[in-house]
């Protein structure tokens, strides 16, 4: 924090605006493109498969990097979610399991 709290460097501002611009372009771009494509049943099925595919692809590296504890906690979350069907209970149980496993030295 060499500068004042409420100052901003012009290069940093350009970087922030650039990051914000590409991110918004990606947020709006996929939606925009789909408005220019005829949504056939096949494309619709593909779009419907996207959420699950994205979740699987997002979680996988986290599990691979997180190791045994993270993997076990996610199994806990799936098990709890199947029984009670309440996301916040599943999340709470998974976090408690992680805290417990780490406290026990895993």
């Amino acid at each position, binding site marked *: 924090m060499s500068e004042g709290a409420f100052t901003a460097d012009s290069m940093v501002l350009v*970087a922030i605006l650039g990051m914000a611009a590409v*991110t918004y372009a990606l947020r709006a771009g996929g939606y925009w493109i789909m408005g220019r494509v005829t*949504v056939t049943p096949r494309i619709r099925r593909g779009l419907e498969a996207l959420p699950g595919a994205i*979740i699987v692809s997002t979680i996988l590296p986290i599990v691979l990097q997180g190791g045994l504890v993270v993997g076990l906690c996610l199994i806990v979350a799936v098990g709890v979610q199947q029984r009670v069907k309440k996301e916040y209970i599943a999340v709470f149980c998974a976090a408690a399991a992680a805290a417990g496993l780490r406290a026990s030295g895993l």
Partner: protein
Amino acid sequence: MLEKNVTLSLSGCVQGALMCIPVFPGIIVFGAVFGTVAAQKGLSFLETLLMNSIVFAGASQFVAMEIYSEPLDRATLIAMVGVTAAVNMRMLLIGASLRPWLGTVPGYKTYPALFFLTDLNWLLALSQYEKGARDWGIYLGSGLIIWAVWSLSVIPGYFAGSLISDPKAFGLDVILPAFFVALLVPLWKGKRQTVSWLAAGAVAWVTWALFGGYWGIFTGAIAGAFAGAYFDE
């Protein structure tokens, strides 16, 4: 193929906002850690607030801060924008999947609302859409509350260093992945999902092993979507 009876109501927004409460701890810790990282890297308080609130894409902000060095030169600036694009490439697909729901809503409403598109509120909204909800306030309300919580959470992190010295001891690092798998459970309906998810997982894994980083989310998602589209029972 577009939904006709799409509505937007305040009660939908409130419902969406309330659904986010279980992930507040995860967002707050994630945001606070970003504040700490930004402070250590030498960003001013104002720069940190601006980046956090107008980029509003956590993972990409962390990766950009890994590259950042003071004083910022042009090559580093371009690299920061480039990695932000790479990490957020999945937004293209997430946004595309909202088209069937929001396609009949006028653009002057949807395009501003797309600024608030995150993995979290997209997942929440689509899980309600699967159950028959057509009120897109669920998407908007959850996006707005996540943005507000995210924007505020960076402040204590910036000043206090880190509120919790070891988030792992409290299991806070598993909150977001646990939330994702919990949302995955009701999406499974049968063979089509099994095939699609196996394809997504395999391709994401190979991509991650070869290139690391976040590219696997993009390649895995595309593979899963193709598998889902071309798998005929």
